């Protein structure tokens, strides 16, 4: 029996070896892809084009602009500010502002900051000047980041300026106070702002590095696609070319064929997994805090579940092309439930429940848990139970379809 299984596996590996383009795509396509994507999506959200219109044009407003310019989040666009001021129709001017540029060379502004007339005077008199932020809602994520950073910067700046004004009025001096004094006040205000804020500790990803979150997601995603594709196409190819019939008339039992076919798909999947894990760790600095052997063992289990899904796809489709379309469709759902863009916990309740039926959901919890949290079986055993259950369900269904096809063809 073992012999026959190995025979099938060997045939598939040979097929892979003979199609060198395919071999390269299958082994290195995912890795090179992940490098590019990880690099792009792990980037900090900064250098956001921001336009400041200063109606006050005072020493204070100019130093606020300087403070904002020093902030890495912003990249100030002065020309756009002039254009905006020269247009009397505010609505029209805003449209012009937010739609100019292209994303490669000079990205469109995400935020407009308007400093009102009398800003300096009101601030020094303790009268709370009103700064207006207008955000480009067509760029949701960057405009949100820009707003957060702008609020923090402006409030800190305001607190310092107020303190300076107070100090000046107490000592009867003119504003601005002397340079040493102003530096001292700045220091005091910053310390005070820090102390009055509650202490926040961030766990597991202390620097809130985006790459630590996105790359495991992307790796899991790439891995799952590779495996499911390999499995689906291996079987779909046989069906499409009619060689499946020949396999069936050979003296082999269904599960022998399935396991034989699994081995080469496993080979592809596992090779990719090791490669991607290495890339994550070395290039993107994602830590491996938990047990590496445990992760490597569990990965095999996870791959088996996804393999089953690949075979299932192949069993319900007739051609490779159809198999691919089905995989694409479930891929969209899978990336949704991997929590890549939105945490599953925030989704509607129905969807949270549905997510449980997608193996990647559980795998992401295990993967992140081992990589970042150093947790073990005692914590994620429910995920393992789910995965095992899904594995049995999916592989059982595959076998059932397989038997049915056998019945049809004999």
């Amino acid at each position: 029996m073992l012999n026959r299984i190995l025979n099938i596996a060997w045939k598939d590996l040979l097929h892979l070896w003979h199609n060198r383009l395919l071999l390269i795509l299958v082994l290195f396509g995912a890795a090179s892809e992940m490098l590019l994507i990880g690099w792009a999506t792990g980037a900090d959200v900064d250098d956001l084009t921001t336009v400041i219109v200063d109606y006050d044009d005072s020493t204070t407003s100019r130093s606020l602009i300087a403070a904002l310019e020093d902030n890495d989040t912003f990249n100030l666009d002065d020309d756009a500010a002039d254009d905006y001021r020269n247009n009397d129709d505010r609505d029209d001017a805003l449209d012009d502002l937010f739609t100019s540029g292209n994303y490669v060379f000079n990205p469109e502004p995400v935020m407009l900051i308007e400093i009102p007339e009398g800003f300096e005077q009101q601030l020094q008199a303790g009268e709370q000047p009103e700064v207006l932020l207008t955000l480009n809602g067509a760029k949701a994520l960057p405009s949100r980041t820009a707003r957060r950073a702008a609020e923090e910067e402006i409030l800190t700046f305001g607190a310092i300026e107020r303190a300076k004004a107070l100090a000046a009025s107490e000592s009867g001096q003119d504003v601005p106070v002397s340079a040493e004094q102003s530096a001292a006040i700045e220091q005091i205000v910053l310390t005070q702002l820090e102390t009055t804020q509650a202490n926040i500790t961030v766990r597991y990803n202390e620097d809130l590095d985006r790459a630590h979150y996105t790359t495991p997601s992307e790796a899991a995603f790439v891995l799952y696609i590779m495996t499911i594709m390999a499995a689906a196409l291996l079987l779909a190819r046989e069906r499409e070319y009619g060689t499946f019939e020949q396999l069936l008339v050979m003296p082999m039992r269904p599960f022998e064929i399935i396991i034989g076919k699994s081995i080469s798909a496993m080979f592809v999947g596992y090779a990719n997994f090791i490669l991607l894990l290495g890339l994550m760790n070395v290039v993107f600095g994602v830590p491996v805090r938990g047990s590496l052997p445990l992760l490597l063992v569990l990965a095999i289990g996870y791959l088996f579940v996804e393999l089953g899904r690949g075979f299932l796809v192949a069993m319900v489709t007739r051609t490779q092309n159809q198999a691919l379309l089905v995989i694409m469709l479930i891929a969209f759902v899978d990336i949704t439930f991997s929590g890549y863009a939105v945490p599953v916990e925030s989704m509607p309740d129905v969807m949270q429940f549905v997510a449980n039926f997608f193996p990647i959901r559980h795998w992401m919890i295990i993967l992140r848990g081992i990589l970042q949290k150093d947790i073990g079986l005692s914590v994620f055993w429910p995920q393992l139970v789910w995965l095992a259950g899904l594995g049995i369900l999916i592989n059982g269904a595959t076998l059932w379809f397989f038997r049915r096809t056998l019945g049809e063809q004999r």
Partner: protein
Amino acid sequence: MNQRHVWAMARKEWLHMTRDPMTIFLLAIGPVLMLVLVAYSMATDVENVPTVIVDHDNSAVSTALEASLDDTVVLDVTGHADDQDDAESELERRDAKVIVIIEDGFEDQVTSLAGMNDMLTAGPRLRFIVDGTDPISAETAMEAVVEESERYITAQLQQTVDNEAENLDETTLAMYREQLENPVIIEAENRYNKDLKAVWDLVPALIAVVLVLPGMSISTVIARERSEGTLEALVATPISKHAILLGKTLPYVFVAMINVVLMYIVARLVFGVPFRGNLALYLALSSLYAFATLAVGLLFSILIRSIEAALWASMLFFLFPGMLLSGMFFPVEVFPFIVKLETLELPVVSGVLINRGMFLQGVGVRVLWWNILLLLVIAIEGFEIASRIFKKRIA
């Protein structure tokens, strides 16, 4: 190029497509189905973040703070823990993403002037621990917990100061009041998407992204004729190669446009996304986008001889970058410059920008010319290269 030949080819390809009920179903309904499912799941902001409270203060104030944190959209108080270790194990199990630790003496800090002074010098007796695994939701949760507790503390202190007003002289009172108010008021207004609805942001982008399906599907058309042996007879006929390629593309453009129309209707009626641009222009640009995507798929189809390798290559090109670098999740403008240049060859990036621009901003050719130009270049170049490489020969 003989127009009749193009139509003959297109008609034949259309027959192939419709003869195969599963393929036509997947191609025509699949994208719409995906749009609904993905948009419904993902179009939520970071909400209901599980929050665990460690309350060492056990006072009316700490209970009120807890209630006001629970009242926010972002946070959801799911439980209590006896001490920090307990709470952290919940963090490990993902039962909590945020821990709020209220130390003993917190009530005193917000209900008396002495306490207020203590808070201003020694800091509030309040600590937060946040699960940073997912930076984006962590940031949102942090912002929410900080903002809400500050708002609560400020309100409490204002009341405290008001209560003590009679006992204080005017300057001291003014000083206290000043401590409690922001030096600057910041008004923020979201243009194009007033309430920053995630669904408005996501759905137009998704419409562009799911159109990669026809693109992937076309990547096997030539390989299929090759493997079925029909290519040999086809290349021995006088039909020109341009007619073959264009004829093969047209039915896919048609399917893509059915998708666009269906998805447009779903976006408007089901998800209530506004459409502010010119509909005729939108349809024209959508077909341009479909053409560009299909031209790339066609190129794969010609470059790669085996169905399998063509499928893998198109998967690697369309699915991963198509989804992850499209700008749907993560803004393209902050990519490293080299990656930005790389994205120039991805029609989906322009597709997303055109869709968002036309749905939300109502912009036209004057603004989108750059993306239109890119798509035109991709479509024409892709088609040109494809027809230059495609030989009416079999080897």
